[in-house]
């Protein structure tokens, strides 16, 4: 299974973290510091796998972002690379040629997409189309709710409650 997902920028800034195994806040920072050091220092033409504390970390760089996933020793590394690529493609489709800024300003959306893709550390949905449809459906749910909430009459109604 996947133990956690990290997105780290080339400057070492964390853009997204998702933990499927229990890690305390302290451990999380430690993990990120450690892995950031290892992964960011690796040259461009090396393999995408790092042995780390008995686990394997599979990472891939897309533009300025490193996508890292930590898996068990006997999980399939190439499969995870495909999952990463899958995730990136979905992001790309959703944001329309995604860039780091998109992820910075829509950090929660990136999470929601990831949640559709992975559940409990396993791949949930392997179809890009389906993920896009699901996300769109939920977005529309959220939007309608927001519209209701932000309509002036609603605010006034609340204020005069």
């Amino acid at each position, binding site marked *: 299974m996947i133990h956690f997902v990290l997105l780290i920028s080339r400057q070492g800034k964390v853009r997204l973290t998702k933990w499927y195994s229990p890690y305390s806040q302290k451990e999380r920072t430690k993990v990120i510091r450690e892995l950031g050091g290892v992964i960011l220092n690796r040259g461009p033409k090396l393999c995408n796998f790092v042995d780390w504390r008995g686990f394997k970390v599979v990472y891939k760089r897309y533009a300025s972002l490193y996508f890292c996933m930590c898996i068990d020793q006997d999980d399939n590394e190439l499969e995870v690379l495909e999952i990463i690529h899958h995730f990136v493609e979905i992001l790309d489709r959703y944001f329309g040629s995604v860039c780091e800024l998109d992820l910075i300003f829509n950090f929660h959306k990136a999470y929601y997409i990831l949640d559709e893709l992975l559940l409990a550390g396993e791949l949930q949905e392997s179809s890009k189309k*389906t993920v896009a449809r699901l996300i769109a459906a939920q977005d529309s749910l959220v939007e309608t709710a927001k519209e209701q909430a932000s309509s002036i009459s609603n605010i006034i109604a609340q204020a005069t409650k």
Partner: protein
Amino acid sequence: MSGPSLMDSLFQRTLEDLIKGLRQQLIGEQAFISKALEEIRKEIKSTDLSTKSTALLKLCYLSNLHFHDMSFAAFHALEVLSSPRFSHKKIAYHAISLSFHDSTPVLLLITNHLRKDLTSTNEFEVSLSLQCLSRIANVDLARDLTPEVFTLLSSNKLYVRKRAVAVVLRVFEKYPDSVRVCFKRLVENLENYDPQILSAVVGVFSELACKDPRSYLPLAPEFYKILVDSKSNWISIKVLKIFAKLAPLEPRLANRVVEPICDLMRKTGAKSLLFECVRTVVTSFSEYESAVRLAVEKIREFLVDEDPNLKYLGLHALSIVASKHLWVVSENKEVVIKSLSDPDPNIKIESLRLVMAMVSEHNVAEISKVLVNYALKSDPLFCNEILGSILSTCSRNVYEIIVDFDWYVSLLGEMSRIPHCQMGEEIENQFIDIGLRVKDVRPELVRVARDLLIDPALLGNSFLHRVLSAAAWVSGEYVEFSRNPLEFMEALLQPRTSLLPPSIMAIYIQSAFKVLVFCLHTCFVRGGSTAGVSASASYESFDDLSVENGADSTVAHGQTCTSAPITNESIVNLLKLVELALSPLLGSHDVEVQERARNLLGFVDLIKLEALNSSGQEENDSERKGVEATKIIRLVHDAFSKELGPVSLTAQGKVPVPDGLTLNENLGDLETICGDIELPSSNTFSFGYPSEEKDVSSFSNLQIKEDSGQSNESTSLLAEHRKRHGLYYLPSGKSEVISNDYPPANDPALQGDNNDNASDLVKLTAESLVPKRKPNHSKPRPVVVKLDEVDEKPVAVKQLESRDDSLSGAVRDILFGSEDILPTSSRSNLPNSNRKGKKKQHMITQVESKENVVDDGNSSSRRRKDHSHGKERRHRKKNAEERNETDRKEKESSSNHPRRHKSRQRAEEPLKVPPQTSVIPDFLL
């Protein structure tokens, strides 16, 4: 109250504002964040859920990416969770799965929220709460929500169902009893045609099978079907993982599965699936020659690929093969060696492992030479990786592969001189270990030690200090093999030794003491003639030294002129040197150093007078006058000349009780004295003593028997306590106690301990010289002293039962409890009603609460049965050829397994078949 709330919601900073503000960094990141946190703390208390949820979202952001604690908001997150709006819920669930953990106090309050959302009609809400459950589930949550998850497992919304399947794994982990409820439905989902659901189920099973594969053997037919039919690579990979775990347990299954896997390997274009096939074959199907050959072919393709990933994985797969088929590695030797200089450190390490796997006693010298050369050239990290693996490979199994120890010892010396070497500790251990174990290598060892000691440059390298301490110890212990002991004295006392840490300094001084005693002994006691064998061989380097170290030059010159034999004059100089070098150390702040220096100087004081006197006189005089001194020297020399040998870990238990010593008597007294607080049970004494001590032990038995009658109970209590807290007891009696209770099957040596301790002891004292193998080299392999138990520590007996955690226990209950009847009975054409009844009973016992559960179970089992019949039929029809083969196999296997055959005959009667034999339904044979 309404005023501020309105203001809050109108002018609240949104997440976007927060992020923008952070990026602009007008007032510095930390300051901005703490200001934002302050705002959030205020806003999150608002009664308006929109304001609250926005605050929560901002907090999530800060917690997630800037690692600020958000545990204070746990309750607020729950409040937002109760909002009817989807957007709020989403934020709340996100916050909860981010921040909650097992010890979050409000965890108890979430159960009802989750339950409500799990039963919601909005599939997205269900999905959110499932997701949250998968992350935060603890025992209570898992237990309380099992019924809801169970219902969702057969939801007709595929989206919900596949998520429930994935979450069920976590529920099982936390609350194994849920297996009884949910397992059947999970298994039913294996037959679903939707690839997404199938993928989720197979994923769950592959995780479960990792932990305890045996429990899932009965499901092999389902997995087999998926393997053959699957169109999706994701699913195939997971199924392969399951088979990799199952195949080693059941050879018939392996027989059946190996062909489809090879097919898959030939057909597939996806590298990930291909690699999974390769890995499955090399890990679990290594007996199938043709499959392995095919896998190796694919591995070779990986190895020569441009992509570093494939190369790495190819090497990785090779290292898995290496344990069983070494020929594969030697076949690909060139690639492996080439990869040693790959730019990628991971590839380098992997290939290093492979190279080490190829090492045998024939090529160890060459390979080590190549590797040491690589180490010289490579970066410090990899250099030490290389050295470490050379050291561990060569020392494996008490230097099993080393034939030429002279070579190995000089290799050790060479390795410690490599600039980046940080393996000092390991080299130190091996130096000493080899010195103790291998007698024949000692002269060479001393030579290597000398080379290390006399090089003043090495003293500056702190990584080498451990090596030097070993060298110093060797020089003191085996000084009799040295060509020129005086040289050692100078080396040990050279001024740069002040760079050493005190503990090693102390070893230096102690070794100097030993060497000095040796010199004096050869000079005075043995007459000085035999001692100076010849220093000419080490003449030149020695000369260099004397030039370098001006302080010692007087002595050195004296030595060079006389060129070896230890004369009175040289002794006098030696004593002077010792005084010169050590007197400053008398003031050392380290106790150990100070004390040893004082010892040595005291000894020198004793000797000096005599030596000085004798130096002025004739030889005969000195003999007479130095009588006292010689006596001292002889005494000390004798003390040092006792040879040290390796000591077994369990040696203490083997020390025989001396004749006059009656240990038990006192303890017997003690027993009467301290009434109920009793000492070791009588068992401890009556067993495990060598036969010579029989009279003693029987005597003690008598003694104890007198008392044991009254205090039997407390004895057993004590034994219990000792078993549990063995740490606090003396080890002597422990092995006996343990072996009485659980005999360690794996360790005949230890068992032997009980019976013929005495013969063991004899062996020990004779230094049990066991040559491992007939050496067929020109130079015979020196004897390596081995102690029987030293190297194989008693292995804890593997208890299968103990691995049976509650989860797999529950699974097994389900699968063996019902399924081992199910497949056999479905084949034995039992009346349907009978079967159903059995089923019902089963379900009722397991699911007490829900009636619909029972109904479901019934209908599903019916469906399932039909299906399996259909499947069978299809399978039969497939084609004649295969059937023939199947039949043949069936015959074969039935002849191989008469028990099984019988069991099928008997299956007519509803007899309980031993689970092991009916694990694989006939379908597979």
